[in-house]
């Protein structure tokens, strides 16, 4: 059997033309049938020991195909493809081959599947978004399905991501995915790593690199340090880091490449936060997203185990929610009352300068202690950890360890004035795209809060945004950090802090325990704010270092 024949081409399915999709599907069907036939014939003639190896190999190949087909049958925005893939799977099953079934409960482990938009029931605008995303990537990932709660943001997000990964830019395509892998691996985000390993191989990346950073070119290895600092302690970035990358003789980065890499790194760091923060399940066609086992066996996936929450947890949590329903109702009311108060008496009680300054310091310091119990948890050894050189390097609070880092003042270096100009100069158009994304995330509101309508949430959003920047030591001169204390309660702070600093430790319990009365879409909204604020904070530090290097 010639190798070429076995190659299945999925790209035809991304076409917007139904005829093209039809042909592509037909080709896939035939290939699969051929493979199946071949496997069966091998099975029937067991006295050929030499074929033993290739037998398992080709059955692996077939399983991969089937898993992909399963993904298509669930997640393709085109109805014809969904139906046809399902049909193919059924027909294979009839041939006596085991077919996979999806594992887990929809795109997110935190959000019940029924709350999330089903593929196929989207409106025209969302369908267009889905189709765009599918056409660009050949899949509709779970992140997209969760983000579609906020289509306006999703559009901007997809556009930016598409531009970063696929359009013109200083870095070659496989570098971009590899950087994505590096960034996601810092947070042990196996979901993103798996996705990008596939993409990396697809664009012709060298599989050897995946065995660890030391197998990648020196140039990428040099980036490891920046990746590490950026992910966990961005305030430590100095112009020496930048200089080290730009002046490494034959392995040096150009400024444009570096900006591209920095944008990619920050994008994937914050996307990892989102993945954990919303409990994104593994993709159906990736490892851990499907099983060939019959449904009776265990019903949770690996990530659940490592995160210490099983889907079994769901029941008690729900009941707990029921108990405290009146309690949490008052939560919302109290929050709104506080916002009203702040709005009104802002002018009356004028805090002194020292008071204002100390409030920031207090908030900064307190943000260090909001950690939930298990601070020194051992990170589970996983396949992705091969990308680390230094697992021990994690988020460390700046003041706790006796290091004094000067406060970063937004009024002296802000995204709108400085960061944007620098990015746009070195990597044209991206500045614009990211700027748009920040704006949409920051300004997104439906003027609702839980069950209340017509609420001005700008104060709350600003408090969340500034709280995150506060954790990174970024201070707004014109903000009263006392507001944060009023508006964000402890469980919410714990959630924010965990997502932004150590996203891999987020549990479903954390997700459930803050803002209990709020809708899931609002929690996703919070996540969007978190990741954009985090991305901006990291970008600000990195870009400031680059600016300092340049002057």
């Amino acid at each position: 059997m010639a190798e070429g024949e076995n190659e299945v081409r999925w790209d035809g399915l991304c076409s917007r033309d139904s005829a093209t999709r039809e042909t592509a599907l037909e080709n896939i069907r035939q290939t699969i049938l051929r493979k199946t036939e071949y496997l069966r014939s091998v099975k029937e003639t067991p006295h050929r020991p030499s074929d033993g190896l290739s037998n398992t190999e080709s059955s692996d190949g077939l399983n991969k195909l089937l898993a992909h087909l399963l993904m298509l049958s669930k997640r393709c925005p085109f109805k014809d493809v969904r139906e046809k893939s399902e049909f193919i799977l059924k027909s294979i099953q009839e041939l006596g081959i085991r077919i996979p079934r999806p594992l887990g409960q929809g795109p997110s482990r935190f959000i019940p599947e029924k709350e999330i938009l089903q593929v196929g029931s989207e409106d025209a605008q969302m369908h267009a978004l889905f189709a765009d995303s599918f056409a660009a990537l050949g899949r509709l990932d779970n992140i997209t399905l969760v983000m579609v709660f906020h289509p306006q943001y999703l559009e901007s997000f997809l556009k930016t991501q598409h531009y970063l990964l696929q359009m013109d830019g200083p870095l070659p395509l496989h570098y971009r995915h590899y950087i994505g892998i590096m960034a996601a691996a810092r947070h042990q985000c196996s979901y993103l790593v798996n996705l990008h390993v596939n993409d990396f191989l697809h664009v012709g990346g060298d599989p050897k690199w995946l065995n660890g950073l030391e197998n990648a070119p020196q140039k990428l290895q040099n980036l490891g340090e920046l990746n590490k600092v950026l992910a966990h302690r961005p305030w430590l970035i100095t112009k020496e880091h930048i200089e080290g990358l730009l002046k490494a003789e034959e392995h040096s980065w150009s400024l444009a490449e570096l900006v591209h890499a920095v944008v990619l790194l920050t994008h994937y760091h914050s996307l990892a936060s989102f993945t954990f923060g919303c409990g994104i399940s593994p993709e159906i066609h990736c490892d851990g997203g499907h099983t060939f086992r019959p449904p009776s066996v265990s019903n949770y996936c690996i990530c659940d185990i490592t995160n210490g929450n099983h889907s079994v947890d769901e029941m008690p949590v729900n009941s707990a929610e029921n108990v405290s329903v009146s309690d949490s109702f008052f939560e919302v009311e109290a929050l709104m009352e506080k916002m009203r108060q702040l709005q009104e008496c802002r002018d009356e009680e004028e805090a002194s300068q020292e008071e204002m300054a100390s409030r920031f310091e207090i908030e900064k310091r307190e943000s260090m202690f909001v950690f939930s119990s298990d601070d020194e948890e051992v990170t589970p050894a996983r396949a992705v950890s091969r990308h680390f050189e230094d697992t021990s390097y994690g988020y460390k609070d700046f003041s706790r360890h006796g290091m004094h880092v000067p406060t970063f003042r937004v009024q002296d270096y802000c995204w709108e004035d400085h960061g944007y100009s620098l990015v746009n100069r070195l990597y044209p158009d991206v500045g614009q795209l990211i700027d748009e994304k920040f704006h949409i995330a920051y300004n997104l509101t439906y003027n609702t809060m839980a069950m209340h309508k017509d609420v001005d949430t700008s104060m709350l959003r600003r408090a969340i945004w500034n709280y995150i920047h506060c954790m990174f030591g970024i201070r707004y001169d014109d903000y009263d950090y006392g507001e944060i204390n009023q508006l964000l309660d402890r469980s919410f702070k714990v959630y924010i802090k965990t997502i932004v600093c150590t996203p891999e430790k987020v549990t479903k319990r954390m997700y459930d325990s803050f803002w209990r009365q709020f809708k899931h879409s609002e929690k996703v909204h919070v996540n969007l704010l978190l990741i954009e604020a985090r991305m901006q904070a990291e970008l600000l530090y990195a870009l400031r270092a680059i600016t300092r290097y340049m002057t």
Partner: protein
Amino acid sequence: MGKTRTTSAEGRERQRLPARRFRTTSPAALRADSVDGGSLLAPLLGLTDRAFSDCPDLADGAMEKMSRVTTALGGSVLTGRTMHCHLDAPANAISVCRDAAQVVVAGRSIFKIYAIEEEQFVEKLNLRVGRKPSLNLSCADVVWHQMDENLLATAATNGVVVTWNLGRPSRNKQDQLFTEHKRTVNKVCFHPTEAHVLLSGSQDGFMKCFDLRRKDSVSTFSGEATEAGPWEWAMAGWVPVLPVLSCHILRLHHSFAHGPTQDAESTANGSRESWGCPLYPLGLCSGPQAGQSESVRDVQFSIRDYFTFASTFENGNVQLWDIRRPDRCERMFTAHNGPVFCCDWHPEDRGWLATGGRDKMVKVWDVTTHRAKEMHCVQTIASVARVKWRPECRHHLATCSMMVDHNIYVWDVRRPFVPAAMFEEHRDVTTGIAWRHPHDPSFLLSGSKDSSLCQHLFRDASQPVERANPEGLCYGLFGDLAFAAKESLVAAESGRKPYAGDRRHPIFFKRKLDPAEPFAGLASSALSVFETEPGGGGMRWFVDTAERYALAGRPLAELCDHNAKVARELGRNQVAQTWTMLRIIYCSPGLVPTANLNHSVGKGGSCGLPLMNSFNLKDMAPGLGSETRLDRSKGDARSDTVLLDSSATLITNEDNEETEGSDVPADYLLGDVEGEEDELYLLDPEHAHPEDPECVLPQEAFPLRHEIVDTPPGPEHLQDKADSPHVSGSEADVASLAPVDSSFSLLSVSHALYDSRLPPDFFGVLVRDMLHFYAEQGDVQMAVSVLIVLGERVRKDIDEQTQEHWYTSYIDLLQRFRLWNVSNEVVKLSTSRAVSCLNQASTTLHVNCSHCKRPMSSRGWVCDRCHRCASMCAVCHHVVKGLFVWCQGCSHGGHLQHIMKWLEGSSHCPAGCGHLCEYS
């Protein structure tokens, strides 16, 4: 230094200082002085009873005082030198006192006043007093009142507006504190003539107007307010909006709310505005509570219009406001893409507003017209942080940038590509600029993030213009040539070499010069365009060759033959010969049709001939022509000629030997040395001296054959020429073989003839040199074509970069001629990675709907606006996704095949519109 004062009427209008220096008894001056002193009489006088008509007087008063100050400084002429001083901390903004002798510098941790002395800056006062650093002192902006030298205002990053009174006896000069803004205040601005009016613009989207005699703001302007009717306030009398409330408010004796009462009736612009009633009651005019108002980046009072101010926003908008109407702005327009960081009103031209934005543009708007009109646009290299008009120079403005670029530029807005002057002193971004004196154009002060304060003198500025090369030369696509140079240069040259009988047709464009233009000498240039001879064929050969060459898909021998044939048909015999030789080299020699070669025997003499035809030659008297050529050759090609002489001789010898030894005739006896030389100087000048106007004539080395017959040739060629047409007539294509002008190809053939078993590899070097030769001659087409046709056989001999260079030049040329298909083929056939990925990147296909002309935004083939399919085939009613053919008469069309088929059977339009379509 010190500019000598002009005595023209215009000059005096602006610079009244000397003329009125002693008019101290003028009542206007008295009044102004009293106001300046912060007298309590001011409210009684009412700011308002000196509206437009009084403004000049008021200004006079100010001037008067200023003149006294300057006199005290030692005459009315400012002196100083380029100098700088170190500050303790980065500066965010600077502002100059109106006496031009002091400057205030403000930043996050600095707030000081410096005296500008002759030789240095001297720290005069530190306004940051108190031990504890307060955020109120972290200044984003600072402004010094232009009427009152004791009054300053700062904008703090925490949203506080602070005023300072230098007249206070205590160490702490802080006067008032306004804490009304919720976010950082980006800008503060005093009214140019009113003593007590301060305006601030903040990140929270509000602008507030303060009266310094009151504790809080007088009015608030919201960035999200809607636009008022077009320019209403400039028209005659509008009706007060809230008559009921107004009488009640009349009791609040507030000058601004009241506005001018009686005196205003006779205001300068003659409008009968009645300002008795305030527009909005106080307290009711605070803007909307929340909502997404855009951040205000700059606010500036108009210098000429008493009530107008401009504000710029983060979303790219500029708003013009009437200070009396806080409810809505008078007009709004989008000035920039992205935030507008700054604006400045022209000091003299009423209604001229300069804005600078993150989009790296400075734009000058005329806002007096109904729609704001963009007058000028300057493109800078980085986002524009500040813009300031230069005094006394109507078209000059200074800019500095917020990021990356540290220099200060002074632009002439009419010359937007080259800055008129450039100051390069700063090592970090410049954050504040100010002209030292409102009537002196030569002193510029600047503060920077590098913690330094500079005084720049215009005469010390570097002028990029001087470093620029004022000559430009460009080839047109069809061989035309445009040449621009300084007028003086061109004039001198044409005076030196008057070529009367010349065939060039220079078309001169001369710019109309504005005598007032300060750059008259530098900016004027003459543009001459030399056209190609209309009958000269232009670049036709290139297009034909590109289209007809076969590059792949057939055996090498066939390709070579085909291409040789094409070249011959186009009269490019030399190229044809090269192809033939390539064939001989790389395909087995036994296959060479001897007949072909036979015909060339004895025609060696004619070799130089085709090349002899230049445009000069044709119509010039032969004597003159050759003289010119010789002139040129002497300078240019002497060394080459010598070099070639020897090699040519050598080759000739070899050739001769060969002719004896072999029965395959040597087809090209090299012409005499002269012929070689001729050809050299006809080709060389193109490369060597492109700027020499007589050499830059488009010289085609391959004119059409029939022209040769017409040409009166040099005596020694006459005979040969007579021969060649005969031969070409009798024998199909092989008319006269082009001279093999490169020694290498000659050699290669002779080698081939020596030993036909030599491997083609043997010729690698020679073929490589041949390709280089062609490429160097400008015929990159040949180089690339051969490279593609020979493929692996030669590729290894030529280094990657050169190949890539050839490919890209050829593709570039092809695309200029819109030979998209050919260029794509070349891209596809290229083996260089960098080239072959050219058509894999950036191939975005944008489709517009054929009905509504909107982009289809990648939603397939259906327009989401008009819900129709893009281009339907009139025959099969399906969407056409490939070639679409349509009738120009009725605009119906469809698949090419379908339409062709349809029109075979019917002459009517398939859409049934009744049109008689024709397909041709």
